[in-house]
């Protein structure tokens, strides 16, 4: 493990729970590691396998998906859809050669700012232990995207 390694983690947060919890953590002056970059999503059910893969492709060391607690999705089943997509993506990561532990889904309510902070800390710790992603952009100019 590289001691100076500061993981870059993309956190997809549901507007109705985790994003509000992150906001509440801020208002409550709760501290958490600055390694995460939050992307607000209308529901974790909006998140697709492709979004997670694109984050990893772009060099993310980890991806955290934070949705509502099971049974309390604002859109009824979005977080269950996300859970299955996260599991499918883990398989893809494994096939591509990345550790599936770099992707994690957690469930938090809008009021659980403390829990959100703990989840972020735990994720940062996990990814820090894994070390930097082996998906390092090559120096040669790479062509990506549609033609």
């Amino acid at each position, binding site marked *: 493990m590289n001691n100076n390694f500061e993981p870059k983690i993309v956190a997809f947060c549901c507007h109705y729970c985790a994003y509000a919890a992150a906001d509440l953590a801020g208002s409550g002056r709760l501290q958490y590691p600055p390694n995460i970059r939050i992307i607000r999503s209308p529901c974790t059910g909006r998140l697709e396998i492709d979004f997670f893969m694109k984050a990893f492709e772009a060099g993310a060391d980890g991806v955290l998906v934070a949705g509502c607690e099971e049974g309390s999705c604002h859109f009824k089943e979005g977080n269950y859809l996300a859970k299955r997509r996260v599991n499918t993506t883990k398989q893809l990561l494994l096939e591509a050669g990345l550790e599936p532990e770099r992707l994690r889904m957690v469930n938090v309510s809008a009021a659980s700012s403390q829990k959100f902070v703990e989840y972020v800390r735990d994720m940062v710790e996990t990814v820090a232990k894994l070390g930097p992603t082996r998906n390092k952009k090559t120096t040669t100019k790479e062509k990506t995207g549609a*033609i």
Partner: protein
Amino acid sequence: MIVAERKTIPEMVEILKPHKKILVLGCGTCVTVCLSGGEREVSIISSALRIASRIQGLNFEIAELTIERQCDNIFIEQAAEAIQKADAVLSTACGAGVQAIAERYPQKPVYAGLNTTFLGILEERGVWTEKCAACGACVLHKYGGICPITRCAKRMMNGPCGGSREERCEVRKDRPCAWQLIFKRLKDINQLERLKEIEPAKNWNSSLSGGPRMLIREDHKI
């Protein structure tokens, strides 16, 4: 529709290893509907290949494109430029689409990114089932619309094998016994009498066993 499944990323990497500039070419028809080779899957597969390539130091340059139908020359034309630029094509169409591209570009290596599995339907969200084996001489009218060739594991044409348990097939316990379904359906439509007719041994000449098939429509030829 034609149903297909993605090959694993290591399988694709192994196939593509000798090449650098790779076009992942999707198809917007059957494989889009069965969620294995449409635009979205092309994007996912391409990301996975780029990651695998960087990890293994393969220097793949992956381009993506999805056309409406790969089994149709009219649409293949739209991919001409992208195919020309690539060293090799990884097609995520069914086997017919892959071969259509390969025939059109004789100098270009074209590979299958999917395993084409069967002709079937979307049974429920996320579940596809096989319904037809394209035998070339359809007998559905005799069996209440349930195909014994495709849906009975033993292809029994004159009644059940006798091994089914609780309406399940003895070969595939996760699938219903086709003969149970045939019996129920014929009863529902008052055609149980049909089962008294003995179906002679099937002539498989019209199936793939008779060699690759073709359809010629003189009225449409020019």
